[in-house]
């Protein structure tokens, strides 16, 4: 599988580290809402189809990217810098 790093270009998946589901929202750090934290830390929908996820180009520029990957076909339809700033 190739991931097109916005900075480095297409690279083999072995250069990347999976860094988790990118659809969740981290609760307010000061919040003690147990349900919200539980949801954030543990609940995953395990989509069959396009899935938003974080990958880090650990074996390259080390930036985190948001990848939309089809979990059924492995097709990657989008890769964008996780920070949102230009590169």
């Amino acid at each position, binding site marked *: 599988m190739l991931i097109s790093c*916005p900075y*480095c270009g297409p690279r083999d998946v072995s250069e990347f580290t999976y860094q988790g589901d990118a659809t969740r929202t981290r609760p307010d750090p000061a919040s003690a809402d147990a349900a919200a934290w539980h949801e954030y830390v543990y609940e995953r929908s395990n989509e069959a189809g396009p899935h938003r996820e974080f990958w880090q180009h650990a*074996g*390259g*520029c080390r*930036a985190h990217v948001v990848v939309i990957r089809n979990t059924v076909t492995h097709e990657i339809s989008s890769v964008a810098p996780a920070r949102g700033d230009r590169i």
Partner: protein
Amino acid sequence: MVEQMSPLGDAYVPGSHGNFADGTGVKISLPQPGSIVEATAWPGREAALAGAIERVTGLSLPHHPGGGVVTGDRSGFGIGPRKWLLTDAAEGLAETLRDALGIENGTVTDLSHGRTAIRLEGERAEWVLAKFFALDFSSDAFPVGSGRATMHHDILAQIQRTGPSRFNLYVFRTFARSFWRVLCHGAEEVGYEVR
């Protein structure tokens, strides 16, 4: 200043090695620049960093990903978003650049001891590098001056093309001996000279 010791130990064996039936395919050497520095700009402060680098080193760095230049004793290339690797034959670049940049624009980290530069040059340099790295080393895809960050197994390598058939590789110092060994091993096929 006390001289830095090479990390290679007994893995460094000057001379010609391998199969040079067709001549020496590559030369491998340890340039040991006095300064290896990583400089990072805060978002929006890239121009300030580029300005500081130019003032201190005279290097005018292109802004596109992986862009870089080589001039005489100095070199620089992009290794990540808002991040550059700079070298100077002389020591002390980190301090000078840090003062010129200011923390409001970004950071400067001295890696003069932490990274080891390995130079590979010669007709078969692209062939030997392709044994280790899944990078397109053709000069169209990887022009002179530009750099790439990639890895060989666990070893992160930042690679700059410094000439049509010359490359500088920067690896973590503690991996340098191990990487040097595999590099030499891979170069045996084309014949190599260590100096």
